[in-house]
């Protein structure tokens, strides 16, 4: 070398010094504090006016298990209805036809604007407005059709559709307009272009929020207990009406909700990762 890079002079040689790792006192104190808090909480729950044997006993009671099943399939069914409506509404909203646009906007406004609990009650009591459905001889009594199950499905699904339509719309807007033009240039009509070209690409943007909404739907079904749909919270309530163990049964329901959400959250992450994979080129 042309010149000494180093001109070691007044500085001490510390190469032999012992490196003392950081002690993280604050961190350990925080851990201790949190552990103490959790222990205190656990103790309070243990000695508090809560009978843990009831929690254990009812965790797998038939009524609870049946409610769990109803919660799960209703979440899936309502989500399916919501996605169908949401996609339809998003397509209408982006159509050049102002009438369809107006209908789509009105639907979104109305159903996003009213609490779901009201919508459920209105569906369930539809017979007050329409005593019969159908025409003449082919009519059915509304109350025979509008069971708690159907009312819950319609209420949850139609409400979900209003939210999903916005998610789908955002997804469709995220697709480059060049893709529409390329599709048109090979002779596709608007609907074919949407189905074959735009939707498959929009999925990447749509899937993550939809996963969130699915988790939200699992919890939303608990509201259908007001119209006697036998989901898990409703069945837990029926039990505590009979035996007065309110908190215990609420804890049972909470445990199952946490289980479902804890399964769905990583599932959603996997799905997101899958759909964002190999997307490098389209950015």
């Amino acid at each position, binding site marked *: 070398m042309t010149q000494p890079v180093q001109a070691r002079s007044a500085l001490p040689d510390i190469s032999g010094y012992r490196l003392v790792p950081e002690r993280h006192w604050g961190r350990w104190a925080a851990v201790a504090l949190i552990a103490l808090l959790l222990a205190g909480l656990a103790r309070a729950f243990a000695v508090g*006016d809560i009978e843990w044997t009831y929690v254990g006993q*009812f965790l797998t*009671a*038939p*009524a609870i298990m*049946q409610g769990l099943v109803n919660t799960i399939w209703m979440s899936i069914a309502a989500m399916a209805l919501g996605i169908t409506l949401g996609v339809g509404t998003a397509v209408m909203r982006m159509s050049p036809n102002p009438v369809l646009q107006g209908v789509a906007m009105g639907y979104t406004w109305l159903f996003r604007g009213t609490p779901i609990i009201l919508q459920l009650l209105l569906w*369930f*009591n539809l*017979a*007050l407005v329409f*005593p019969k459905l159908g025409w003449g001889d082919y009519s059915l*009594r*509304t*109350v025979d059709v509008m069971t708690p199950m159907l009312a819950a499905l319609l209420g949850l699904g139609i409400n979900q559709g209003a939210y999903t339509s916005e998610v789908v719309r955002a997804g469709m807007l995220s697709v480059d307009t060049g893709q529409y033009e390329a599709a048109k240039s090979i002779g596709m009509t608007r609907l074919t272009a949407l189905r074959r070209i735009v939707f498959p690409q929009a999925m990447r943007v749509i899937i993550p929020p939809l996963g969130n909404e699915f988790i939200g739907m699992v919890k939303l079904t608990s509201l259908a207990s*007001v*119209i*006697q749909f036998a989901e898990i919270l409703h*069945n837990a*309530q*029926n*039990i*505590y*009406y*009979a*035996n*007065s163990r*309110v*908190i215990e049964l609420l804890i049972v329901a909470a445990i199952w909700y946490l289980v479902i959400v804890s399964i769905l959250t990583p599932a959603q992450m996997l799905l997101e990762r899958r759909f964002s994979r190999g997307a490098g080129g389209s950015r």
Partner: protein
Amino acid sequence: ELPSRITSRGAIIAAVVPNYPPLELRDPKTNELTGFDIELGNALAAKLGVRMQWQETNFEQMLTSVRTGRVDIVMSGMSDLASRQETATFIDYLRSGSQFFTQASRAAEFATPEALCGKRVGASRRTSLPNDIKAFSDAECVAKGRPAIEYVPTEGSADARTQLRQGRIDAAMQGGETLPYIMGLEPNTYAPVGEPVRFTLMGIAVGKEEAGLQQALADGMRALIADGTYARLLEKWQLTPSAIPEVQINGGR
């Protein structure tokens, strides 16, 4: 005479909210509907040569359901009140006394209902009990120069008892007929305060125009009293003090 739609269907559809033990509840172990109303209703339907088809609903939907024809009758521990007779006709079959009760540990503190003046008392906001509390408070507290009872609304009677256990309220009120059952479930937790302050009749709610159905139900009920089924079921569900001597139609005031 039963209406043809019922005979052809072979069943009476009855609305029930299984949140009022021992009149109606779902057995926590089996999830089956059971209770005094259920067994009495089944016996009544059998007397009339049909089945009883129970349909679970919620409290605010019950009278609405009679109006919309979702159900034929309501048999769910419903009080026969003058205001409700505008929408339905009641076949009365049970007497209910609005009963104050408190925590067993505080029984000595509240020896008589008058001791509740100025205290916090809870009851389900969906029932006629709030009116009973107010009537009692006006007559026995305010009129006699004592502070009024403070009514605390709750979401149901189970909620009222939960709040009583927390001490959020000093006492609660519910139908006296249900107390023995509750006290059996949770021994040494609750204690009644004095005697019921007001009696109401409980009835089967039927649509106002359904004269035939009303008469058939009343006759059937009388037959059940006559053959001893009524007394046997009362006994089974610890309700003997709530028996009524004879079946009335719209006997409530």
